[in-house]
């Protein structure tokens, strides 16, 4: 008997960690500067808070808008949203939401419309320090029906009228007194930073119980959470900036998983998978991060559409993705990713075609000159400068491959790298890049690219360099499409407009589309329920479903 019992006990002890684990340690590469959900905009904060603080609405893993703190999404069809006519005949919308009956702050105080009104007051105050304030500016009035039901009156009717993802609720019973005395000092006095472990600040399945600045954050279950019971007694989020150290911490057991939202770059995680794939699940999720080349259309070398098309056709993006990223980075055809429902799959793809690329350059008057570099009739060389972010290994590799591929069609590429701060603070934002800038835009599902494509968004000294249309793209047709897609409520009609936007983008090529980046999640095999989203609403918005099995 003893002979059989001993191995059984040993195997049971060895198996114990797999089912008895009640603590999950997550590694991320950044530490949040503030924990206030409305102040500053930082991915680390969004990630950490997602365990403890829920917005009213969010996009889920299938990129559909969903209620997190509300009972039902208001729509015109279900009668909870009503079109309003405003002064001057403009259209607005009144959308009615009901907060979940079981929504409570972790000190037991119910989440109420008082919190909604207070959060709106903070958001619209110009000195409160709230980062994304567009929604708050558009909400003209909050009409309180009862302690759970409220109507938002918005001064513009757009197709995404019911998406209030940026309306993060602040607990009025804690924050009001800190805000009302001195709104301009609120960002320094918020309890989220001065009293971070106060349970009344959190309404998610977990609440923050410890913050060690620059090191880690500890979360424990919110006993007042009304939804699915969280699966862990403790979640520890550790900030480990260096990705090699992050990997070493995972292998040595210092952390259990690496978050995809703020973890290893794709090429590093692919290498990790080859070495340690048997121990971990490596999940790559295509994201809404659009890697592209902004072209400076003011440059005489790039003003001709044939040249821009030739450059795109001269790039073998499929091979770049296959060789550098094992094909896990989706080739982009425009600003819209294939996972978005408005993606126009029927549009022709700009596949690698060096013969056509050479022909287009010949047609544009660029003939092969000395040293194989094309020259025009003014003896100008087709020599382009590409600026990208220093220290981003992936971009540096892509740029080098592009350099080699374009050389074959007679285009010289000079690569220049700059620190992100210089590049985004000066070179790109003030349109100082002579020809090309390689970087990514992070967007939301069905996000209208007004700020990057509308002619009113071209940065210049006159508008104090605001706007993100860095190429200087000015197309009345595109302006009209962007204006109309924003206010089109019919999904069918909107899809048709989106198709036109993508077709026009592919024809005009204000930027050369490269890839939609993939996030890499490195998870222990026993961890179930993590659903990468690929957009700005991170996976821990559904952390109550995470289980160690």
């Amino acid at each position, binding site marked *: 008997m003893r002979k059989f019992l001993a191995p059984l006990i040993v195997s049971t002890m060895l198996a114990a960690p797999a089912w008895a684990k009640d603590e999950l*340690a997550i590694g991320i590469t950044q*530490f949040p*500067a*503030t924990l*206030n959900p409305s*102040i*500053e*905009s930082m*991915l680390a904060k969004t990630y950490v808070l997602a365990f403890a603080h829920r917005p009213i609405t969010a996009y889920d893993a299938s990129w559909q808008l969903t209620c997190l703190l509300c009972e039902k999404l208001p729509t015109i069809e279900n009668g909870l949203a009503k079109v309003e006519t405003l002064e001057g005949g403009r259209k607005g919308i009144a959308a009615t939401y009901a907060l979940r009956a079981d929504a409570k702050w972790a000190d037991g105080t119910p989440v109420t419309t008082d919190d909604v009104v207070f959060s709106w007051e903070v958001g619209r105050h*110009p*000195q409160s*320090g709230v*980062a*994304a*304030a*567009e929604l708050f*500016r558009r909400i003209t009035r909050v009409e309180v029906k009862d302690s759970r039901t409220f109507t938002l009156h918005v001064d513009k009717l757009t197709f995404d009228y019911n998406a209030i993802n940026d309306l993060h609720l602040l607990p009025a019973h804690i924050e009001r007194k800190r805000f009302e005395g001195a709104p*301009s000092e609120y*960002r*320094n006095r*918020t309890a989220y*930073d*001065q009293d971070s472990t106060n349970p009344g600040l959190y309404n998610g399945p977990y609440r923050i119980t410890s913050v*060690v*600045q*620059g*090191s*880690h954050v*500890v979360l424990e279950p919110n006993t007042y959470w009304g939804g699915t019971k969280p699966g862990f007694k403790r979640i520890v989020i*550790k*900030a*480990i*900036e*260096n990705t*090699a*150290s992050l990997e*070493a*911490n995972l*292998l*040595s*057991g*210092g952390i259990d998983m690496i978050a995809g939202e703020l973890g290893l770059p794709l090429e590093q995680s692919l290498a990790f998978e080859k070495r340690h794939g048997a121990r971990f699940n490596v999940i790559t999720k295509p994201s809404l991060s659009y890697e592209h080349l902004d072209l400076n259309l003011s440059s005489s070398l790039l003003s001709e559409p044939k040249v821009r098309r030739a450059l795109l056709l001269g790039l073998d993006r499929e091979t770049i993705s296959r060789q550098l990223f094992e094909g896990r980075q989706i080739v982009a055809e425009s600003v819209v990713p294939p996972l978005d429902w408005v993606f126009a799959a029927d549009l022709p793809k700009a596949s690698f075609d060096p013969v056509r690329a050479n022909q287009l350059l010949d047609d544009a008057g660029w003939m092969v000159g000395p040293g194989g570099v094309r020259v025009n009739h003014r003896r100008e060389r087709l020599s382009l400068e590409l600026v990208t972010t220093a220290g981003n290994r992936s971009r540096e590799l892509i740029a080098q491959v592009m350099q080699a591929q374009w050389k074959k069609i007679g285009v010289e590429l000079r690569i220049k790298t700059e620190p*992100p*701060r210089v590049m*985004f*603070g*000066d*070179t*790109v*934002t003030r349109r100082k890049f002579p020809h090309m800038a390689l970087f990514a*835009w*992070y*967007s939301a599902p069905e*996000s209208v690219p007004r*700020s990057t494509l509308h002619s009113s968004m071209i940065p210049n000294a006159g*508008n104090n360099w*605001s*706007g*993100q249309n860095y190429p200087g793209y000015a197309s009345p047709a595109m302006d009209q499409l962007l204006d109309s897609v924003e206010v089109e409520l019919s999904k069918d009609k909107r899809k048709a407009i989106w198709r036109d936007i993508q077709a026009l983008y592919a024809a005009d090529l204000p930027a050369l589309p490269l890839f939609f980046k993939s996030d890499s999640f490195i998870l222990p095999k026993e961890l179930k329920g993590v659903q990468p989203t690929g957009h*700005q609403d991170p996976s821990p918005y559904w952390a109550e479903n995470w289980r160690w099995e």
Partner: protein
Amino acid sequence: MGVTTRLLQSVLVLLLMSFVVYGLMGLMPGDPIDLMIAGDPRLTPDDAVRLKALYGLDQPWMERWLRWLGQFIQGELGYSRLYARPVAEAMAPALGNSALLMLSAMALSLSVAIPLGILASLRPGGPLDRLVNLLAFASVSVPVFWLGLMLIVVFAVGLGMLPAGGVETVGGGGLADRLRHMVLPVAALALAGIGQAARHMRAAMIGEAGADYIRTARAKGCGPARVVLGHQLRNALLPITTIVALEFGGLFSGALITETVFAWPGMGRLIYEAVMGNDFNLALSGLLLATAMTLTGSILADMAYLRLDPRIGRK
């Protein structure tokens, strides 16, 4: 030169330092709001203008420096923009962590380097000297980030003996736990520092070996140990004192690379993030503290020189 004069000079240096740091940060292209805009599609150009005005980033840097100086003179360090708390509160834990790390590393480094330097100097060109030289060159040449990663790979990943990073086990594991977390970063820093200190020690000892007082001591019948440790070492410690004094400021400014590799929340990372994030209050306070400590170290070194060699005072 009197202590009062040295203190007045130090104040002037600090003032100049604050001006230069503020100016360099102010002249850096771009600001954190630009980076924020690039990373968040929800932010509009209006938001950028509003946030820049709110944080004073739209004002000329000279105006901001004068305002900061006025507050600083009144003892007001201000708020950290990055950490949304008073500067002193944001700096305190990092300061403690860095001082602990750097002090331990320096103590370990000197306690190994000084005997090595002495031993190497006893027979210049001998086998031991060559070995110490080899180790010293290796110590100086090996990049500290690589050394740190190798230590992690061997002792944390491979052998599983020590934690790969952090200050302590989450939840607190007591003194022994904190010491375990210190082993690898302290070892990385100490190993990187041993070479330089050993080389200086060796050179100073060899320099002193031919001095008249050494010959006199030997002639008076002093044994080799007494000559080396009692006479030669005392004078050879002057250059080491200089090194220690110069590194005194480093105790409070941290070691950026080591702190990053070992996820050690210290002053190096804090100051770096503050500079890159245009957190003027935090960056200036951190850098001025390091400068002040270096200046203090320099004054202390002068006092130590007087003690080690009273002739310096008479000159």
